[in-house]
Structures are given as structure tokens and as C-alpha cells.
């Protein structure tokens, strides 16, 4: 599986990951090589095999719907790069 430069740029866009020109070139080659190593899985007969999800079979886990104190707003916002009036602040989302 060879990745094209356009595919690398598209995947970076999906991941909201800015890449430098050097990184785009490097990843185009490296990711293609890594994907080639995954082709070994084509040898396995997986017809009728269910996919694994977790290592340990746990069904839906429920607990009682009890209320308990949350973290204070000041703690939650303490690590925020930008905050205003008790909110996280982001750049304008709408034009």
C-alpha cells in the first residue's frame, strides 16, 4: 500500500494535525513502509471470526445513578490556556 502525498495531507486534516513540509514528505515514505508490513494480515483466514473489542469480556457496566460533588469550577479551569467569566475561551467559531 503506497500512500500519496494527497492522502497524507487528507489524514493530517482529519486529525487536525499541522505538519511541516519535511514531515509530509517523511510520513509519505514511512507510513507507506509501515502499511506494507501490515499486509501480512492478508494471510489470515478471518471468515466467521468475530472482532475483539476488549481483552476481558465485560458486558455493559452500570452503577447506581447517585449524585456526588463535582470538581470546583476553579480547579477545572485552572489549566485552561485562555478563560473568561468561568468559561474556556476559544477563537471565533462563526465568521
Amino acid at each position, binding site marked *: 500500500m503506497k500512500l500519496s502525498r494527497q492522502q497524507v495531507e487528507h*489524514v493530517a486534516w482529519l486529525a487536525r494535525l499541522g505538519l511541516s513540509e519535511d*514531515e509530509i514528505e517523511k510520513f509519505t515514505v514511512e*507510513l507507506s513502509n*509501515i502499511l506494507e*508490513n501490515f499486509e501480512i*494480515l492478508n494471510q489470515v483466514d478471518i471468515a466467521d471470526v468475530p472482532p475483539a473489542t476488549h481483552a476481558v469480556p465485560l458486558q455493559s457496566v452500570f452503577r447506581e445513578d447517585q449524585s456526588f460533588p463535582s470538581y470546583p469550577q476553579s480547579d477545572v479551569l485552572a489549566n485552561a490556556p485562555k478563560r473568561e467569566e468561568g468559561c474556556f475561551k476559544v477563537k471565533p467559531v462563526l465568521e
Partner: protein
Amino acid sequence: MNKLCQLTIHEAHELLKRSEISSVDLTKATLERIAEVEDKIHACVTVTEDIALKQAEEADGYIRNGNITPLAGVPTLIKDVICTAGIRTTCSSKILENFVPPYDATVIKKLKTQKAVILGKANMDEFAMGSSTEHSAFFPTHNPWNLNYVPGGSSGGPAAAVVADEAVYALGSDTGGSIRQPAGFCGVVGLKPTYGRVSRFGLVAFASSLDQIGPITKDVTDCALVMNAIAGYDSMDSTSVDYPVPNYVSYLKRDLKGLRIGIPREYFVAGMQEGVKSALEIAIKKLEELGAEIDWEVSLPHTKYALAVYYIVAPSEASANLARYDGVKYGFSEQNASSVIEAMEKTRQFGFGTEVKRRIMLGTYALSAGYYDAYYLKAQKVRTLIKQEYEQAFEKYDALVTPTSPTVAFKLGEKLEDPMQMYLSDVCTLPINIAGIPAISVPAGFVDGLPVGMQVLGKPFNEETILRIAFAYEQATEWHKRKPEI
């Protein structure tokens, strides 16, 4: 060097109990050791000297009142991927360089309940992605046995610190070998518990279906003591399993008579170092002398697919988990951008290192429209087959024994530019995470002055048997008593 820093947990505990030493003495000795060797080893990201000494004073008061627990007053280092309230938790990443968690991970709460002393946070590959600790955004950690070599990874800081006596023990995390491989490279004991055995609450997520927290210790008894403290159900982790926790120490002093141990031949792979192979053969013969029945002809044919399965599943889960680093809620944030999207892209471009970006790219690709069936879904189906193969093997055997890694530690820089070569150093450890079973690495010899690790794999929720095997082997050998000259 103050010799107190060389103590194991159980040795320190005896001295504390008899009031022959205080926790303050012991804590000062380890802090002095950190000051003495840290410019060579670089195992620590943050050392919290004042907090540690305060905790040691509290522990001394607690012990004086007759309330001694096995970990009381004993100093530990915590891999910097486990949240510590009020102490920055960086994951050795620029993006979390100044992140101070508002809460403790469940394992930290449990250590604090026992009045453990926390010395600080230990270095790692960024977000636990790597096998050499060279992917730390801050600095690489050096192997105390030879400073030109890597300590392994991603828990390279914790493993190097323990063998260098910078901490009596450490907590690490293991997604594909990140406790066991560095434990093997540094000549200490490391255990990855069964998935669900130890709460992941407060462990910064890398690959949620594979991650587990576990001990890195100087010997097997210490490993059992730490497991006693951290194992158990936690309602804060929905994948934690409500299964009774035995007293692991009580299983140690039983001989190996009647235990059936299988040796899967696929783990003795091409490209394996000859010295590692012969060290393992000698170690396995020792297990036989100790009474175990050895079957040298076990085959787990799907093992050869584990690397591909792992490097699809783990990056896929990582790409989803690391979506949270957007520069809004916490962490590094690039404000020099014209839109909210551009701010996110730049934050992640400048905040993440190359290996993290590589895995986000790989995982995002494997999950993207049109490729999901070909990669992620297929990998999860092969994962089922790998799991089933272990289940079948454990119908016949009580444990399986393999090398922890195909080679001893490699040189700093040797694999840094070749991601596939780096990934291959986890080839013996990552199948265990895929299957969710427990495994321990125990010192089993040396090649060219560098430690060899033996890995013992067990049935789910049967850590006691692999601890028992590791203990019997340790007691019959002297490897764990050797110390590096730093």
C-alpha cells in the same frame, strides 16, 4: 553513597518496623542518590523533594503509632503518565509540560492510603509511545549498566531509576511492553497485570484496550507487595474487573513441582541475539531443576501477526484518545492563528513530537472511511484468534516462558530513525497486551554487561502463579543482586 537507598521494600519495611531507620532517613538517602547520579541517568522529569520529606515525616508519625503497612514510609517514583494531584504530569510531552492534574489516579490514592512517599515523576517516551525513552520531549534516559545504551521504554525512567537506587520501586504503565521491556533492559522486575486487574483511572490514556499500570521493583517479593497495594476493582474505571485480590506474597514460597510450563517456539525468533537465546535456555533448565515440567515444543502460530495487529489497534485508539489535546482545556496552546481550526492544528503541530504524530497519522488512516475494514476491523478479528490461541495453550500449561526482548539494550540513537526496527523491539511483549493476560519480566543473565530478561506469561487474573515462578527462579539465581557501577 548512603547504603539505605539500596534497600528493597521488604528490607526497608523490616527496619522501619523495628525503628532502626526512619522514613525521613530513607527518603533523604534516595534524594541524595538522585542528586548524585541524575546528571548521568536522567530518569526524573520532576523531583518533589519538599513534598516527599513532608510525606516521610507523616509516615514516621503513622509508624510510631503502630500503623505500619508494607509500603509505609518507602519512597517511590511514578511514571509521568499517572496523574498526581498538584504535581505536574507531563507524559514527557511539550503539550502537557505545565499540566497540573486536579486529582490523583486511583493507584496514587492507594499508595497514599498506605503512607507511601512519592519522590517525583519519572521520564518516558512521549505519551508512552516508544521503546527507548528517546522519544521523551525533554531528554533521553540512559541505561545505568552502560550510559551509551537506552534503558528501554516507554517506562525507561522508572526502570533506570530503580536499578540506579534513585527509588526503592516505581510504578510504570504497559501498553505493548512498556513495563517489561525496560525492566528487562535494566535488570529489574516488571509486571504487567491482567487487563482490568489495576484501575486505569488517572492513567493518561494511550490505547485504552491495552493499557495497564504495574510495578517496577528490585525483586519479586517487592513486586508482589506493590501488587497487593494497587490491584482491585474501582468504580471509576468501567473496564476494571470485580475479582478477588489474593495476597500475592503468600504464593511466593511454594516450589514449582507439578507446574506445567510451555516454551512457545515462535518467541525464539529469527534475528534473536544468540546470547539472549542461550541465557534463556539456561534459565528454563533452571526452572526444570526446580521441579517444573517443561514442554519445549509449544507452538502459537498466530504470534507472527501480533506486531501488525498491535501497530493498527494501538495507534487507532491513540488517535482517538489524543484528540483531546486541542489547546483549549489544558496544555500547550498556540494562539498565533486566525481560526479555531488553525489554532488546533498549530497547537498539535508544535506540541507533539514526531513519534506521536506518526502514530496519530497511522491510527487516523486505519480508522478513516474506506480503510476501516481493511485495517482496524481485520486487526481486531486477528486479535480474537491470538487471544483464542493463548486460551487453548493455558488449558495445557500453567505458564509460558519467553525472552522479554529478542536482544539486550541497544545503543542510543541506533533505532531512532527507523520506526519499524524500533517497533520490532517489542515483538515478544506486545502479544501479551493483545491477549490481555499478565506477564512478568525477571532478570535472567547478562550479555556483554547488559541484562537479559525472562518473561513469564500467565492465565488471566492469575498473577500469583507467574510471581511464584519468578520468585523461585530469583531465589535460585544471583542476577538480581548485581548492581551497575555508575
